């Protein structure tokens, strides 16, 4: 690296990190929270005995998992205006990413609920609990414990997937880096730089994920 490149890194690192902290991270947190709500609701519907809602939930998961996120984002941002629905880049990004997290997350939550022993349901029922009470008090807290590792993975994937929303003109960290590349014409340097920042974010998250898992282990049976 020559002096000019070092100067470029010095000039762009903080603005890029700032874009990450101001846009990438909030976008990740918001879409993950919304996605998780969608995931739990979808999982519960798919485990219920309501025929029509079950079909709809299954259809939703099928569509989202069977098409690229990039295509979904294009449909929401560039396609929907033709149908009269015009959404800002920010809202489009939140909708696209949340729906994606919700679909994949619902399978994780569903598997976690199914992994809880039948005896836990029976013990709850034998004490006079309704299905909803058993879910809320007994099953979901245990399912949450089971789903933390795979949901942690989804969360880390999501941090990286937010870079996709740069294509719908949302200026988050990656979009910012492409602007710097256009300005300085140092693609190798600047793309590596932004890659390092993503790596930094994900590494911190991995450590946090480990901490959460450790904390929840205090009541694990094995």
């Amino acid at each position, binding site marked *: 690296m020559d002096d000019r490149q070092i100067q470029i890194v010095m000039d762009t690192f903080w603005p890029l990190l700032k874009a990450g902290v101001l846009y990438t991270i909030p976008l990740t947190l918001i879409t993950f929270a919304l996605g998780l709500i969608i995931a739990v609701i979808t999982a519960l519907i798919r485990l219920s005995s309501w025929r029509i809602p079950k079909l709809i939930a299954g259809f939703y998961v099928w569509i989202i998992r069977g098409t690229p996120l990039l295509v979904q984002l294009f449909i929401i941002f560039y396609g929907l205006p033709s149908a009269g629905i015009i959404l800002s880049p920010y809202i489009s990004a939140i909708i696209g990413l949340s729906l994606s997290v919700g679909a994949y997350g619902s399978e994780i939550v569903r598997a976690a609920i199914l992994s809880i*022993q039948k005896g836990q349901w029976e013990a709850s*029922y034998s*004490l*006079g*609990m*309704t299905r909803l*009470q058993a879910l809320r008090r007994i099953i979901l807290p245990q399912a949450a414990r089971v789903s933390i590792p795979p949901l942690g993975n989804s969360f880390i994937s999501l941090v990286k997937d937010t870079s996709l929303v740069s294509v719908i003109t949302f200026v988050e960290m990656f979009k910012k880096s492409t602007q710097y590349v256009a300005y300085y014409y140092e693609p190798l340097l600047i793309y590596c730089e932004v890659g390092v920042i993503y790596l930094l974010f994900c590494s911190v998250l991995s450590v946090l994920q480990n901490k959460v898992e450790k904390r929840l282990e205090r*009541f*694990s049976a094995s």
Partner: protein
Amino acid sequence: MIEIRGLHKSYGSLEVLKGVDVTLPKGKVLVIIGPSGSGKTTLLRCFNLLEVPDRGSIKLGDNSFEFHAGAKIPQKDILALRKSTGMVFQSFNLFPHMTAIENIMEAQVTVQKKNKGEARKRAEVLLEKVGLADKADSYPHKLSGGQQQRVAIARAMAIDPEVLLFDEPTSALDPELVGDVLKVMKQLAAEGMTMAIVTHEMKFAADVADHIILMDDGLIIEQGSPQEVLNNPKSSRAIQFLNHLNGKSEE
């Protein structure tokens, strides 16, 4: 107290209960024995409708049920029945994310809507009763099987049930832990708790049972006092089963 008439239950083409009648008066102990696959656990699980019978009737205190093909039992009636029964399972089924005392408080707070302080007081009394006052804040995986089962008994009693149901409560325990659990059950029987117990512990059955039912192939083949059923069985199938058990216990 409990009146069961003509109970039938099938899983697909497999008929598990073929018309069973049971009467359990208040304050008495009923022990159900029989070879595996005889339907005894299914019968017990019909008491609190964890299994819903196909035909027959159940009356438990103020709750009465008639079962017919295709008739659905209202959820609120099922809940009412379950609030007046407590069940202890072979595999304990304690809630692993709650401490011993939280396990015992749970239904009091969630189902009976008691406040936490009241529920905790009741739980403390029950823990004391099963000899585990010092384990109140332990999570289930820190307890031995026998201790877990005693917490489970306390949990079942916390909702003040009219009858306690035990489904092979000692079958999953190491032999040296069985005694502690049986001791608690004997104490409950002595205090006049109405109980229905599925077990293989014949000595225990002989000690505490007021009435013994011997089931085979979905039917009651022998019943009466422990003396009558265990010492003077009439049917050859019963004699065969009891000999087999005795042979086993002499190993």
